[in-house]
């Protein structure tokens, strides 16, 4: 938001039309935004690294000495947990000659961070502890060679990284989503189940699909059985997120194949909140779904223009998850079916975009969430800056 980056390699006219004032005049993004490697390279630098990207759960590095290497955009980042329980994030490059401290995706638990190349060792807080057998070149001073810290925060038990160092403060980035999520308090929730999927589609189609329920009657019979798609509402946002909700049918308690819960209602939520599923897209890569008895996330990592890794995770209050005989499949089975329906649609859209006949299309009123996201992207492509998304107003405007 504060630094201006070069615009993306797309033409102004094809982006301006996404931003048309009236929804009926607006058109979707051009195919190149999804197909081109050049655009993805640009997005990695200017959308992902410049944002607060969710890289996983605090419990991935739970104990003192836990270490994990992750990727944010083009950047390798090493996460560590120190002895006082504080999280640190560093560029995953040794200060000696740049070897990765841990290969991306790998975890370790050690009291120190150890470079495998020439065995330099760093504290969990990044300070150089020992330049092993380094033949002192006169004025070598250990204090001058700490690992270089990257901005990181923990929010309700999720870890976010800002690799560029110049995104707005995280509190500003999430805005009022913190208050909206607070009654669920996912901080201490535990993972009941987690699935990952590699989709043959562009990462943005997965978000766009999540932001509308116009497709629900056609492809989600199970979902429509518990929540009529016409009950959608928009939420007033002050951060980099978009969200809305679906109200349950009177005879359904939650999102499961029979509408029944296999867990407990979350302690902090109101009767009214227990009637809705709330869907949030927190830019750029986290989809967060709040339900009466559990929380679900989809975390996205673009692999190539036509390939996206999605991790879908279900979280439950600790006392529920640790109850003997607890079975998270009431939630996971329902969403696994629904995920596959959505992902098949996203992959098919990508196939359509690959044809020469793909042209930007119009938005239905129920797709103003998609349009708000695309407008956010179009603005970023034009200016190189993340802006807050447009307000959306699906159905009755309703603030949780």
């Amino acid at each position, binding site marked *: 938001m504060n630094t201006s980056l070069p615009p993306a390699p797309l033409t102004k006219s094809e982006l301006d039309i996404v931003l048309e004032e009236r929804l009926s005049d607006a058109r979707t993004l051009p195919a190149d935004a999804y197909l081109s490697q050049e655009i993805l390279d640009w997005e990695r630098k200017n959308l992902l690294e410049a944002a607060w990207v969710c890289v996983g759960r605090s419990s991935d590095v739970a104990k*003192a000495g836990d270490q994990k290497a992750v990727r944010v955009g083009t950047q390798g980042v090493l996460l560590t947990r120190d002895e006082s*329980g504080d999280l640190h994030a560093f560029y995953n490059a040794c200060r000696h000659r740049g070897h990765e401290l841990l290969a991306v995706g790998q975890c370790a638990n050690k*009291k120190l961070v150890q470079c495998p190349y020439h*065995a330099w060792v760093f504290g969990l807080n990044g300070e150089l502890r*020992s330049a092993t057998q380094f033949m002192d070149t006169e004025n070598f001073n250990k204090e001058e060679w700490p690992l270089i810290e990257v901005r990181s925060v923990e929010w309700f038990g999720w870890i976010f990284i800002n690799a560029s160092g110049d995104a707005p403060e995280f509190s500003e980035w999430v805005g009022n989503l913190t208050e909206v999520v607070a009654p669920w308090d996912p901080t201490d929730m535990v993972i009941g189940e987690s699935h990952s999927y590699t989709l043959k589609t562009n990462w943005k189609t997965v978000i766009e699909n999540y932001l509308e329920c116009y497709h629900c009657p056609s492809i989600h019979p199970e979902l429509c059985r518990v929540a009529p798609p016409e009950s959608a509402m928009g939420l007033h946002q002050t951060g980099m997120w978009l969200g809305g909700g679906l109200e349950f049918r009177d005879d359904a308690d939650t999102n499961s194949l029979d509408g029944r819960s296999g867990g407990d209602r979350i302690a902090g939520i109101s009767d009214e909140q227990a009637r809705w599923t709330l869907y949030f897209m927190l830019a750029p890569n986290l989809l967060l779904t709040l339900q009466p008895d559990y929380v679900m996330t989809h975390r996205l990592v673009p692999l190539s223009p036509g390939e996206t890794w999605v991790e879908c995770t279900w979280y439950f209050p600790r006392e529920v998850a640790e109850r003997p005989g607890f079975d998270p499949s009431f939630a996971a089975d329902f969403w696994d079916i629904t995920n596959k329906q959505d992902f098949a649609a996203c992959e098919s859209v990508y196939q359509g975009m690959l044809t020469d006949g793909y042209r930007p299309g119009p938005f239905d009123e129920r797709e103003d969430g998609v349009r708000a996201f695309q407008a956010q992207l179009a603005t970023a492509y034009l200016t190189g800056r993340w802006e807050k998304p447009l307000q959306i107003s699906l159905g009755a405007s309703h603030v949780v």
Partner: protein
Amino acid sequence: MSSDPELTLEITGAALVADGVRSLRLARGDRAALPGWEPGAHLEFDLPNGQIRHYSLCNETTDANSYEVAVLLAPESRGGSEYIHNDLQVGDLVTVRGPRNNFPFAIGSRERALFIAGGIGITPILPMIRRAHAEGIEWSLVYGGRSRESMAYLEQLQHFGSRVQIVPQDELGHIDLQTLLGVPQPDTKVFCCGPSGLLDAVQQLCRTWPDGTLHLERFAAGSLDASVQADAGTFTVVAERSGVTCEVGVGESITDALGRAGIIVPTSCREGICGTCETKVIAGIPDHRDFLLGDADRESGATMLICVSRAKTPELILDV
């Protein structure tokens, strides 16, 4: 451990704070600020007889210009604590390294701290208590010792009222560890320092507690010092792949013993910090002396750093 800065400090105060316990204050000659430290830290002292001793810091961490340690005159002492008790005087200079911390006060803001101290083991616990108190962390202390007269810092601790339980052995017997630790408590971390009998018993009882609950300091306060530990005992190492067996002598490292037998394991730091010599253990229980391995690796005993670590069993079979 040449990596820590070496400091020459002046003794600026000394006092007998309990039977057989002498406290020393140290400062720079010019009284300038000293390197900062966190609760649980200790200093390494070079004594004139060539011995090395470790003593925990027990003053306020905010006290920027001086360090305080308390030293027990150990009856079985090989001269270290005797020198500190009888020979060192205010105005004398000593060489120390550190502060270092192998016993950090690692606790979450919503967790409770249970401190267990035996005798001179109270020294690293004191700064932890002050920290817990300042940060509003729930805590309690059980402090055992031979007799009230032998237990240092009782007066300061009594200010904390019922959070502190004093157990002088001549009045109340041993600390009732079974009641204290028999049932795992949720969200509680245990910090323990004292004689090895106490530490072993606490470690045993904490087996059923969640991973990462127990934090203890073995050679704190000079009651047991690293140099004694590091030299203790001989054992046999079988180099499985090479088909060679050798004896590891007192004061000798496994890498040196293997080297004598013609098996070269690459090393870099030779002080258990860099991980170069990490070796798979096929059988036997390692006695880890390194600064690198995490708790899970340490417990599993699947690998060890053979430049410093030793054996708890008479024989170790290694994958070399």
